[in-house]
């Protein structure tokens, strides 16, 4: 599925920056909503079986989103994001930091920049993540520690589909 959609992930270690580009088979306004509306963000921004729980989100410059990644055994990792710039349907920027459950950020955080563009019905999203500290980046990855487990589940899904088709 979606083998033809561009996905590029590169890291410039010296510049402490990660660049991600992904194409989506949908018009820009839908993709913009998927990245900026709480009820949609919560559905996809945690790699399954982790899930996302947003306590509050105020998508405007100076506004914040406070959310947790919740693991299947109920562990919570809180993150506080502050929107620093918004150009509707073109770009938004935010400052992302881990936080305790009361919303006190642990600095330094990272700077995120999202740019959206549409061409012949497909939307490209470019994400730049600048991390001041490597330790922080390690934690960012740790947060998605269920990654390997996810692949296992996907494999199982595919297997089940194949099996059910054979019946």
């Amino acid at each position, binding site marked *: 599925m979606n083998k033809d959609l561009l996905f590029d992930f590169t890291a410039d270690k010296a510049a402490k920056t990660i660049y991600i580009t992904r194409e989506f088979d949908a018009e820009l306004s839908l993709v913009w909503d998927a990245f900026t509306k709480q009820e949609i963000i919560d559905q996809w921004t945690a790699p399954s079986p982790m899930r996302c729980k947003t306590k509050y989100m105020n998508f405007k410059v100076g506004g914040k989103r406070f959310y947790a990644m919740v693991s299947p055994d109920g562990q919570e990792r809180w993150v506080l994001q502050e929107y620093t710039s918004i150009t509707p349907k073109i770009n938004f920027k935010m400052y992302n930091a881990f936080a305790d459950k009361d919303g006190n950020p642990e600095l330094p955080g990272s700077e995120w920049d999202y740019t959206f563009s549409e061409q012949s019905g497909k939307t490209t999203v470019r994400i730049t993540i600048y991390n001041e500290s*490597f330790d922080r980046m*390690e934690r960012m990855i740790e947060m998605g520690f269920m990654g390997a487990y996810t692949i296992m589940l996907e494999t199982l899904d595919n297997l089940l589909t194949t099996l059910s088709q054979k019946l």
Partner: protein
Amino acid sequence: MKQDIFQAIADPTRRAILSLLTVQALTPNVMAEKFDMSRQAVSKHIKILHECDLIKPEQSGREIYYHFNEKKLQEFDHWLAQLRQNWKTQFNQLDKILSTMKNQKK
């Protein structure tokens, strides 16, 4: 305090030292010569690189040779690969949602 690997490789001189060490192990004196720096300046860079495990000292007679610790960078690449996988999974989840949203609009 433990050094951050990002801070260590953000400095161009330290990157140059590292790339030199990938080819051969060197003593601080030789490094100072090659980079035309004082021993103090070299020691400072060595300290930072050593503290984040990017280089390893090895005593040979009266000299200390510094080696490049490849394992440390591999670890880093492993983390990146994990992060890439997480994004990939999330985007696949989003693909499904977008397709549902498109159908609802119709």
